């Protein structure tokens, strides 16, 4: 059996666990704990080590999805999780501009770990307070070539869309490298 992996990263409460849960064929192996920091109590639990999801492609190939812990104090896990990834997805909560700077910092950190293709998923685009993609692109200082994709992590179709766009980018990069 051959395996490949992708990493889903992003700031605290960006929707990484929900994203993986939407497409994983197994119950996500989540390592969640009750949140202790007052400032981060926008939800009850948070991922402290990693989330782990699986998509079996065929008899010979499996895709693993790893979600990184969102809280900064667990960032020592990021490099370990990024080892050998095909590419990565940066989840950003479209309704929380206060997390945009952190999202950019995480993006740069992962780029430093591995120069693999990546896409940015603008999560919670179904919320009334969600920022427009154009405004988010400016705020996140994303190059026009970087794919910024609308996403609702609990809706499988949009999650599929994000994963496919990442795979298209990986394929395109591979073909460019061969040219």
């Amino acid at each position: 059996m051959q395996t490949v992996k992708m990493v889903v990263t992003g700031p605290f409460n960006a929707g990484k666990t929900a994203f993986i849960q939407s497409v994983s064929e197994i119950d996500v192996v989540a390592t969640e704990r009750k949140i202790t920091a007052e400032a981060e109590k926008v939800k009850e639990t948070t991922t402290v080590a990693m989330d782990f999801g699986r998509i079996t492609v065929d008899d010979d190939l499996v895709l693993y999805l790893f979600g990184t812990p969102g809280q900064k104090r667990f960032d020592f896990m990021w490099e370990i999780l990024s080892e050998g990834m095909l590419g990565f997805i940066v989840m950003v909560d479209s309704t929380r501009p206060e997390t945009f700077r952190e999202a950019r910092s995480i993006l740069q950190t992962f780029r430093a770990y591995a120069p693999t293709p990546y896409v940015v998923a603008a999560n919670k685009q179904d919320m009334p307070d969600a920022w427009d993609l154009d405004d988010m692109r400016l705020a996140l200082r994303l190059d026009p070539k970087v794919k910024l994709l609308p996403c609702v992590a609990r809706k499988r179709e949009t999650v599929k869309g994000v994963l496919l766009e990442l795979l298209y980018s990986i394929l395109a990069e591979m073909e460019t490298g061969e040219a």
Partner: protein
Amino acid sequence: MALKGNLRDFSITQLLNLINLAQKTGQLVIEGPGETARITFRQGKLAYAQIGAEDGSLAYILLQTRKISQSQYKLLKERTAQMSDKEIGLLLINAGYLSQDAILTSLQTYFVGIIRRLFTWVEGFFRFEADSLPVDGKITVRVDLENLIIEGSRQLREWEQLQEEIPSLDMALKFSERPGTNIRNINLSVEEWRVVSYVNPKNSIRQISRATKMNDLEIRRVVYGLIQAGLVEIVRPEGAAPRPQGQQPRQFPTNDKGEQKSMLNRLISRIRSL
């Protein structure tokens, strides 16, 4: 859609950049520490600005920019109470007191001054009200934002450097163990003394900032200065394991490009079928 958030994480410079690039028209309302600023933009250019309790009238702005004296200001306020700024401006030009250029320069100086004050705000909430413009009768200007953004970026860079140096305010400080250093012989500012008095591994920098009523930028500046002077050290949290070093592992289980492509195509097919 909503363009609102918190200055703590989305700076004035970033907002100006966004407004400039998107050529937005509307009013940016910023509720800062103790006062509110209302900045109007037309097609990405600064058009008008008003802050706090300052009345923002033309007469007030001319006084602030020293185009008229205090007595002229009083006279102007008394005699033109029912007139709009545009009417007052015309009156002054027609009477030969001021040129149109002088009035516009005054307005630009005043509005840009407000933006400069905003660069010092690191806390507060903002919202952008699209297509909202100043009330009729106000004189607007057209100031390119690029230079202001560059100026604000310099401040932001300082802020980012400080953040890099002092990544978390949840860390504590302790006095450096340097025998022979007598802190009483060192010239410290009032702010530095206030911080020094709270230096103790039990107190987080955030707690010190609250006790000394300093904002994040101010406390970082002071702490950075104290660190540079070798007086204090940041007490790092325990248990931060060093990152493992090593070769970048393979992304694909095979080195054959053809097989890699095949894997990708199979992955694409599988995701599509989910």
